[in-house]
């Protein structure tokens, strides 16, 4: 496999940085939507290398981080039911809900297993016909098609003990919600790379047209991100916001049609609960009535109890780009990757964990 070194070439990177420094004059406040972008920016130290007038904010694009406490409480409650096996992506098990976490529930006896994909969960369902297997479906448009595929496969194979708790979220509506809140005065958005590989670049057009904000889809290598910043700076300087793809090897304007069809077959758009933002209409994916026998919420009775948010945690305003982890008085003190209070410290792509691991110009 190629395509790694080419996108880390220091000479090309320095050239791009030179071009950005030369062209950028106006203040440019840019939000990188994805947690994956935040990690890459810190890992390669890109913030230190950009001109002072280019400011980078981290956005809400971390699927673990945006999972609401109430939804986690549901997952934990499902795990406490008899003869249920909960299957989940790894990071999720450590996120604190209102009173517990999946990890703590596991230590107390719930059968909770970490899987790498919904296919693994399906395999567990095949091997345990006398148990109910519930997959905690988190993620954006990147993961949703694979989970849709697992439901279709379960239907085809007549696996009747496989369920999904769909907490999936979609990106363009949350971008709109953040812009409508008017809390952050953005000049440009680095649009998600892997999400756009599925949905394409067309869904961001409204951001340029209606809000006058520059958009560039980026990959996750340093040169991808520098190219995206270069494109955003160019749009801002020329006063012509549009949607550009700075990740052509991964993203087509029309996206991945077969994956989109899979998603549309199984899911329909509905409201979703975003941590720190609240319930946003038309920003989530619910399982369609036709497939409701796979829907964990429709098939199990649970009482998750009242929702409590962790005291002093500002993950919500960090996810909206209003605050940085440095503004949180828990950061690095009571909240660390070993003992996370909020989800942004749990996920390897969460802003707080990234600030903590890689440090910024202020050190850790």
């Amino acid at each position, binding site marked *: *496999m*190629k*395509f*790694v*070194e080419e996108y*880390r070439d*220091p000479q090309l*990177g*320095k050239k791009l*940085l030179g071009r950005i420094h030369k062209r950028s004059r106006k203040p440019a406040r840019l939000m990188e939507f*994805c*947690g*994956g972008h935040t990690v890459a920016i*810190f*890992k*390669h*130290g*890109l*913030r*230190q*290398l950009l001109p002072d007038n280019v400011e980078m904010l981290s956005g809400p*694009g*971390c*699927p*673990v981080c945006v999972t609401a406490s109430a939804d986690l409480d549901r997952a934990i409650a499902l795990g406490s039911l008899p003869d249920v096996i909960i299957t989940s*992506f*790894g*990071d999720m098990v*450590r996120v604190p809900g209102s009173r517990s976490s999946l990890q703590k529930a596991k230590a107390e006896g719930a059968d909770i297993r*970490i*899987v*790498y*994909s919904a*296919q*693994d969960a399906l*395999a567990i369902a095949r091997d345990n016909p006398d148990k109910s297997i519930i997959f905690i479906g*988190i*993620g*954006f448009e*990147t*993961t949703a098609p694979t989970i849709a595929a697992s439901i279709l496969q379960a239907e085809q194979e007549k696996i009747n003990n496989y369920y999904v708790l769909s907490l999936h979220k979609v990106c363009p509506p949350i971008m709109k919600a953040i812009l409508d809140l008017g809390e952050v005065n953005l000049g440009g958005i680095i649009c*998600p790379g*892997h*999400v756009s590989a599925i949905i394409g670049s067309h869904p961001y057009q409204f951001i340029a047209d209606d809000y006058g904000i520059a958009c560039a889809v980026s990959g*996750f*290598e*340093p040169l991808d991100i520098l190219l995206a910043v270069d494109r955003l700076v160019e749009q801002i300087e020329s006063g012509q916001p549009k949607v550009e793809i700075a990740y052509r090897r991964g993203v087509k304007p029309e996206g991945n049609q077969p994956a989109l069809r899979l998603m549309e077959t199984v899911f329909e758009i509905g409201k979703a609960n975003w941590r720190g933002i609240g319930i946003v209409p038309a920003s989530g994916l619910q399982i369609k009535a036709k497939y409701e026998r796979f829907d964990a919420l429709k098939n199990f009775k649970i009482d998750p109890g009242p929702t409590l948010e962790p005291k002093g945690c500002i993950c919500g305003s960090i996810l909206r780009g209003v605050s940085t982890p440095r503004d949180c008085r828990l950061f690095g003190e009571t909240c660390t*990757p*070993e003992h996370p209070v909020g989800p942004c410290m749990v996920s*390897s*792509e969460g802003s707080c964990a990234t600030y*903590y*691991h*890689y*440090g910024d110009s202020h*050190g*850790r």
Partner: protein
Amino acid sequence: MEDKILLAHGSGGKLSQDLIQSFLPDLTNPILDKLDDSAVFDISGRLAFTTDSYTVNPIFFPGGDIGKLAVCGTVNDLCMSGARPLYLSLSFIIEEGLPVADLKKILTSIKQAAEEAGVKIVTGDTKVVDQGSADKLFINTAGVGIVPEGVDISAANARPGDKIILNGNIGDHGIAVLSQREGLKFHTPVPSDCAPLNGLVADMLAASANIHCLRDPTRGGLATTLNDFAGQSKAGIIIEEDKIPADKAVLAACEFLGFDPLYIANEGKLAAAVAPRDAGAILAAMKRNRYGVGAVIIGEVVAEHPGQVVMNTSLGASRIVDIPVGELLPRIC
């Protein structure tokens, strides 16, 4: 002999004896062959003593298996203190049902690795547990060695100015094992780097007595080892991103899994902090050894930011290199 390991193989009776007898030809040496309750041998000098238990899934992986790992890992732990490894113990915990052929293969690997490292297996034990009570095979090895006069190596000995040397590509073992794991299978041309490093360490010590720290970056990877040096020596470390060698295939696998090669396990690598004036001679000696051909200076020890490892990135920025928290998990998004 049966073709699968039975509980009776661990009972202490006839089957146990047969199994142990079948091990002997591979491991034979006068101390072991006595089959007394403990190995008895003469030894003098400063003793180094270490133990490690080995569990790996799968037990066979490209470039090695759990047997080779169990010998190399303990040999390497001994020589990272500057010791010349001499004797090993070998203890199996076998899950009932393990194919005897698999055990034979692993024994052959143990024999070959011990021969290469020049160590003798002098005592051992075998237990068999019910299915589900262990995962195929666990191995514990302990080892003793002699630390030569004048050698004083510890992670607490790094001093400002010391050069940090690495003996080659990072991440090979972790990626090779991961590529074989159920649910995550992918093709990679990179085998594990699992190897005994005592010969390399001996060559380094022959070139200079001024080797301050030595450690094999196994679990937790190079990042963890360098943080150990910085933390225990109360000094800072600066490394250069573009000096750290890694195979392209490992970088590619790390990219799609969302891993950083600095945190991936190695089984045939060492990191050293050495006096700057001897760095050239040590490096030259390493390059002449088959396990040090790719040796390179990747950074240095500094008085600033004690306890912290900082990396200068290829693009000219810098960042902290932290220790990992918990298990590495593939990216979701």
